[in-house]
């Protein structure tokens, strides 16, 4: 009982201390996060004009690279998160892409029909949930991102095309996954990791970190000709 | 009406029986393997090839070759040709055992053998297999019922169980008497029912593959497949009786039943001719003869089936000389049996192509052992039954 009380009070103090400490956060990152969380009103109707007309319209309205305010966006949205959550958001360098491509219509391919609305509206205004029965031809936000990015990257032979080229994997919280007794020793810890990551363990056995053997002239009491390393004399401790 | 069937009371254990025993053991081991390791463990069946030897031979061919039962019953009892009665009991026994082993084969083949009763309660009347299953199930019981008088004839008033089992003597005897009396009363229904059920499932066995129009080679896939199956069942019925009677009489050294067999083959000539006409006509009307010279194993198998299973034996039977020689009749009958068996194998196995994967199917050793084991067991039981029950006609003169 006493033990428990001591433990919990210690825990409370820790939490309080943590919450009081001011952690520095990057302001633009926070802004991007906030923006990614927004839900905007769905735009049903768009103006179906062809690409050249659209370019002319943009020039006429005087929209240029200077209007690109944000360095980057986080491509993320509650619309996507509701369905699947395997990967972290992608940091999309908007300004850089705009400068490289120098053609807003490449991505901002249509505009809302309502003339009072912004010329280059954001993706998630038109592309929202997938498989909208009222707009079957309209692809969802996730597909819009992927189609736009990968197709262009493939065509231009430039830019990442694999999943982890853009995304960080969402590593699941291991708090409940790892089951270790208090005071576990190194072997128990490794065994626990291998319980799920057996493949990683096998791969490890093939790496130089495990197999390296060779001279170790700088190790005390060893000379050049002494073969050393994990593959020979050093302790392979699991 | 000078026939009187009686038990043979011959020596049971002969070298042939031991050979059978070896096959039975091999089959038994394979069946054990099937029920411990799964169908995939003993067979070459796959997604692309869900039905193989067991369905093609144990079930389809088994049913076809058991057709002797209903064809002879129809002849003797319904059309009243009583001179054929000596062959009815052996034919009935063959049918009964045949169908029993069809069901045993099915039990091995279906994945959930313990669920075999489910079609009784869950009906899908669109399913051809459902109808076949129902018919086979009822028919099997009809056959058992038809067999009761034979058992009763031997054991009525003579039930003598040894030791403490003797207590059961009286009840079993009573049961036999009642069963015999009931069977006798409704025998005419049973006989007609047997023929009707046989016609139904023999033809439907042909409809089975019609649900897969894209998978069966056009040489066999025809809307009249059920009719072809029915006629071929008619056609193979008597040859099968001839085939086995000859085998049995010569193996037991009984006098051959040529006096009966010769008229039987006349009927066969007619039915087989009809079957041949249907098959040839179907081929010409649908124009499938264009495949004949493809030279693939499928078309070759068709040619063999047509030539040696239908046309040649038919020509043989047309000749009176062949019809009257014991050897000639036997050879022709064997060829017809072979032809119909090959037809079933062709429709269910050879003519089947999977739409996507290349599936060069050949039965595995395990599958073959199971099939051979079942056949050997069937022969074993047949021998056992004719030895101890009044099935075959007693020899007029002892010729051993």
């Amino acid at each position, binding site marked *: 009982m006493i033990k428990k009380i001591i433990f919990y009070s210690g825990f409370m103090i820790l939490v309080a201390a943590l919450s009081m400490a001011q952690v520095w956060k990057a302001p633009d990152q926070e802004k991007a996060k906030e923006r990614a969380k927004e839900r905007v009103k769905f735009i049903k109707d768009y103006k179906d004009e062809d690409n050249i007309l659209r370019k002319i319209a943009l020039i006429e309205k005087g929209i240029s690279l200077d209007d690109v305010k944000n360095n980057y966006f986080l491509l993320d949205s509650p619309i996507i998160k509701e369905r699947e959550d*395997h990967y972290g958001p992608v940091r999309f360098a908007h300004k850089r892409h705009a400068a490289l491509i120098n053609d807003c219509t490449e991505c901002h391919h249509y505009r809302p029909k309502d003339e009072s609305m912004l010329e280059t509206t954001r993706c998630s205004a038109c592309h929202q949930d*997938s498989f909208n029965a009222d707009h079957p031809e309209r692809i969802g936000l996730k597909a819009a991102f992927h189609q736009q990015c990968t197709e262009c990257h493939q065509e231009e032979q430039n830019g990442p095309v694999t999943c982890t080229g853009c995304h960080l994997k969402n590593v699941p919280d291991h708090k409940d996954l790892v089951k270790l007794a208090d005071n576990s020793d190194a072997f128990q810890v490794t065994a626990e990791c291998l319980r799920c990551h057996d493949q990683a363990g096998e791969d490890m056995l093939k790496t130089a970190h495990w197999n390296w053997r060779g001279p170790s002239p700088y190790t005390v009491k060893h000379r050049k000709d002494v073969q050393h390393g994990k593959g020979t004399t050093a302790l392979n401790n699991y | 009406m000078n026939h009187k069937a009686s038990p043979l009371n011959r020596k049971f254990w002969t070298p042939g029986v031991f050979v059978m025993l070896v096959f039975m053991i091999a089959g038994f081991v394979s069946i054990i393997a099937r*029920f*411990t390791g799964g169908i995939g463990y003993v067979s070459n069946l*796959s*997604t692309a090839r869900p039905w193989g030897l067991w369905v093609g031979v144990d079930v389809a061919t088994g049913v076809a070759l058991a057709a002797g039962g209903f064809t002879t019953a129809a002849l003797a009892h319904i059309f009243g040709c009583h001179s054929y009665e000596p062959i009815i009991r052996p034919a009935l026994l063959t049918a009964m055992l045949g169908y029993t082993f069809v069901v045993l084969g099915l039990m091995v083949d279906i*994945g959930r053998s313990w669920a075999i009763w489910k079609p009784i309660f869950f009906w899908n009347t669109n399913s051809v297999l459902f109808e076949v*299953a129902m018919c086979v199930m009822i028919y099997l019981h009809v056959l058992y019922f038809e067999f009761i008088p034979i058992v009763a004839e031997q054991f009525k008033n003579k039930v003598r169980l040894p030791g403490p089992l003797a207590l059961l003597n009286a009840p079993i005897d009573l049961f036999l008497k009642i069963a015999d009396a009931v069977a*006798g009363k409704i025998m005419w229904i049973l006989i007609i029912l047997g023929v009707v059920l046989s016609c139904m499932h023999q033809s439907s066995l042909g*409809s089975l593959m019609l649900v897969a129009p894209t998978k069966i080679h056009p040489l066999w896939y025809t809307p009249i497949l059920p009719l072809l199956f029915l006629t071929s069942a008619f056609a193979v019925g008597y040859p099968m009786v001839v085939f086995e009677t000859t085998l049995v009489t010569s193996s037991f050294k009984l006098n051959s039943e040529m006096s009966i067999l010769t008229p039987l083959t006349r009927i066969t000539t007619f039915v087989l001719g009809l079957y041949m006409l249907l098959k040839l006509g179907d081929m010409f009307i649908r124009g499938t003869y264009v495949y004949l010279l493809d030279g693939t194993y499928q078309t070759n198998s068709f040619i063999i089936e047509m030539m040696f299973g239908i046309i040649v034996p038919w020509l043989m039977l047309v000749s009176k000389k062949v019809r009257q020689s014991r050897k000639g009749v036997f050879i022709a009958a064997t060829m017809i049996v072979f032809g119909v068996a090959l037809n079933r194998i062709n429709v269910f196995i050879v003519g089947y192509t999977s739409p996507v994967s290349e599936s060069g199917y050949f039965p595995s050793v395990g599958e073959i052992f199971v099939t051979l084991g079942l056949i050997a067991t069937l022969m074993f039981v047949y021998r056992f039954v004719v030895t101890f029950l009044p099935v075959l006609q007693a020899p007029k003169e002892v010729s051993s």
Partner: protein
Amino acid sequence: MQLTRRNFFKFMGATGASVAVLPSSAQAWQSKAPPDPYGCLVDLTRCNGCRKCEDACSTVNELPPPIKDVCDCTVFEKKRRPDENAFTVVNRYFSGKLDELDKPLPVFVKIQCMHCQDPACVSACIVGALTKKENGAVHYDVSKCIGCRYCMVACPFEIPAYEYHDPITPRVRKCTFCFDRISKDGGLPGCATICPVEAITFGKRNTLLELAKKRIKDNPGKYVDHVYGEKEVGGTSWLYVSSLPFSKLNFPQLPEKPSPKLSETIQHSLFSYLWSPILLFGLLGGIMYKSKKKNDNPQDKGGA
């Protein structure tokens, strides 16, 4: 033979009655396809071979995980088929065209059960364990299945797989169209949800069919003019559009006639109300009665 006159006429009466109902049973075959099923449109020009659909499918259906290492392209070296552990697989084909760097351009093909409108497997199943649901899914109920594998024989797409290595309780395994998920409001199939490029579009089949045709029309030269599954075996709930002819992508070439049409027609015209067996029974009974009278023989009792 206890064939009395009375018994005999009783049966003949039944026969007559059954012949009378005959005309009503002789209707033409009718499709049992649901009018407005769900479906999926697979656009092979969009699929990039990421195999996320395989992952999602195995997760939602609690199957073993697909072959490891999703980004390792060696899995594409062999053409795979859906099996008892994977309801859907993605295969790679080459179009014969090259990209700017002279690398051959791949076409990826996801395969799974097509959820036919008039499924051969459903017609075949001896116990009705397979059923075509109103929402389009062809659903398997293991509690009825006896394992005869007739569904596998019948399927024109070679889809249902079998747990051949389970000795006692093997199951037929195939894509469920995520029946439980799509039965819920707003529910989606696992594979369609996860597909990053929306190569799989979920929706009402009728809408998808229009959509498919619109895509073909709006992008001249991009697609071959064929919506696979529109007419094949009477139509399937899953549809495909592609830049390559389907015959090059190992899709079976199938007739427009629903597979079960012929067998069901024969079956029903022969056996509805059991008219033909009853008729035959009566007929044989008549013959038997006649022949019995002719050579009335007291001896032919039993004997079978």
